[in-house]
């Protein structure tokens, strides 16, 4: 099945809204999933896992803090915790924040990208993979991206490079080319994952009632003049 970027982003955002994500987390998480998928980085599985684990507790969005730069996400997902962490990393005096037990750290990449401004750039890494992110220079992937990292990771995110030894895997030009290719061809998606997303998105819909039918916003049942 092929979908467009617009369909991908809107469906992911609605799915998060349907799952009960806080306002704004749904917008940013959905946009981040679409950003990743459009650049050939699988995200839907991670998004669904995050929504399945979400129990409505806002603390999933703010991991426990043991110091100004150390956090413990307790196995929670960057889909929910990422927006807040990226914001703190952007203004941190320390060169980077270190977050233990964070799942789906790849979501931090597009979340941080939205905070790149002027001279502010980001580096993100987890064990064997990461990314370098700049406002003008784009996103370059570092390290081993051959398989999604299962389980929670110790993640570093900051404005100075914490893992300079990670080799360049995919330069910013190629990442951008993947996006252009997705625009022209559409995005192939797993139908099973898409059905699950659609089920979450469906929760945002309101069933018809006698009152809503009476107040229909279109023309009436027949229009034959």
């Amino acid at each position, binding site marked *: 099945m*092929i*979908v*467009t*970027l*617009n*369909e991908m982003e809107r469906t992911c955002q609605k799915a998060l*809204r349907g799952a009960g994500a*806080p*306002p*704004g*987390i749904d*917008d*940013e998480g959905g946009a981040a999933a679409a950003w990743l998928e459009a650049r050939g980085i699988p995200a839907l599985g991670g998004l669904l896992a995050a929504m399945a684990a979400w129990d409505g507790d*806002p603390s999933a*969005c*703010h991991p426990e803090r043991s110091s100004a730069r150390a956090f413990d996400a307790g196995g929670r997902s960057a889909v*929910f915790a990422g*927006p*807040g*962490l990226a*914001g*703190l990393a*952007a*203004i941190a005096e320390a060169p980077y924040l270190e977050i233990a037990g964070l799942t789906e750290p790849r979501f931090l990449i597009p979340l941080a990208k*939205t*905070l790149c*401004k002027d001279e502010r750039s980001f580096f993100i890494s987890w064990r064997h993979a990461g990314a370098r992110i700049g406002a003008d220079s784009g996103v370059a992937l570092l390290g081993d991206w051959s398989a999604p990292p299962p389980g929670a990771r110790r993640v570093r995110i900051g404005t100075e490079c914490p893992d300079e030894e990670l080799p360049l895997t995919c330069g910013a030009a190629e990442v951008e080319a993947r996006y*252009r290719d997705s*625009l*022209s*061809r*559409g995005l192939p998606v797993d139908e099973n994952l898409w059905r699950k997303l659609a089920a979450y998105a*469906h*929760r*945002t*819909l*309101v*069933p*018809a*009632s006698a*009152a*809503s039918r009476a*107040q*229909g*916003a*279109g*023309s*009436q*049942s*027949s*229009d*034959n*003049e």
Partner: protein
Amino acid sequence: MTQAAALSLRAPATVMRLERLGSFHQTRLSFMRSLLRRMAREGWSLTREGFDLDGRGVGTAVYAVRTPRGSVRLIAFGHELAAEDRTDRVIAERWDATFALTTAPGDDATLARLAANVPLQEAGRCSPKELVLSRANKSLRMFEAVVADLAAGRQPKPQAVSAIGYLMRTTAVYGNGKYGLSDLAHTFGGGIFSRPFEAEMLSVYLIREFSFDLVAHLARARAPETAVPLSPASKRLFGIGNATGLGMAPFLIGHPVLLHRWIAARETAIARVRALEGSDAESRARFLEIMARAIAHLAEWRTDDARLMARIETLRREIPAFRAWLIEAKVLEDAYPWNALLEESAARLSMEGQELLNSLILEPQGEVIDDLEDSLAAADETLALDPAMSLGGLADLIRRHYAWALKTDYQAPEAQHFFWYVSEEKLEPRLGARASEEGAEKEMPIAMARDAARLLAALQDLPPAMSVAEFLFQHPGYRRTVRRAQGLAGRDYGEIHDNLLGADLVAVDLLRCKLAMFGAVKFDPKSDRWTRIAMYQGAPAFEDLDPGTAGDWAFPAFLA
């Protein structure tokens, strides 16, 4: 007054009230208007590559448009539609005709692919080669009357047709990645289109050409010996109708960067004309001519909607009187004549009249304002979050930019009378009454006035020096409101300055604003939640399109 003073734009507090937005009329900068000027200026060609329809109008037609930057085709499928299947509602499943605007070649493979999907509309799938998906129904009485006239060798009489003003009306025009269509970034990247809704507006114009060809074809099938095609003058009588419901309304709230650019361009155009120190004889004559045409247009504009009809009646009285006054007082020969007109309009004209006058003064000033067309698009609509801002700074920002939202008591039932939601049955935005309808817990996120007030209240007891990043880390539920407030700083026309949940909301005003930006005329609300309009009525048909005619079809009138 000084030129610098005249260049100042009207305050958002004035412009962005929903009642005023709901009084907008088309301008030179409206999308249909600028598209036709561009087509004529760049010498676009139109070729009917195929017209394989039978005597009932069933079959396929292909229209190729060639521009200096590439080609697109409108593929039209004509269908037979039973009377009981004809509805303008978005949930309809069959239509008189369905359309796709595509960058694909008009070969058999493309036609077969589109024939299997386009007639299904939402139930089919397009590809990124398709830019726009649409459908239209005939205006039955009008369509049949015109076919009968043409079959008898007659042109339709303006008195008989101008009130309806279209042969077909679209019930949906989809773009931007919906149903598999090209994403907007891809459409813009293709090189032909670079302005908002430009591909959609071209589709509608080509559907209008198809409607002309279809009535001629059916007349010829009925009476091959006597039938005549529509003349270029007759074609101007007909635009394309459209029925627009609440589905369009949340767009303005969901695209605040775009809304800002549209309104800022319009307000900048008005300010530039106000700043003109004098007027030459040509622009004075042109203005008086277009004003006379607008007066005739008002006489032909009718609606069953009591609220709008009362406004039209007021316009019919006040605009001729205003024209008589400005001629008598020779205002246009004074210094800063356009500014003087607008200043006087505040005292003499209704809000509808003031906004009509704003549109009219722009008409003779293409050289002064037409470059603003290129400022209407927003390549990046991202609202940037500033995590380093202090909460004190954020609170100041909200007090400055959302003062209009902070006066309302959102605990009062009337302040949250409505909620916006997406209907499971229609998959379209709807308005519900919070007290009496289910589903308020699923309301759409468009209540910016209420949310800004809630955010400010949440900031009251927090340290002003705390960063936005720290606040949002601890209170993630305010992310959307904070991002929007910060991202719209400096984009003063991005918010509608009204409570869109309030009991006094007139939702059709949202539609009027957007449709006026498109270039629609003859607004005809059928309730407070949907409206009929005409698009391209008065515009030259393609055979009649040149740089002269392309710029001179505003406020059409046919009966004078």
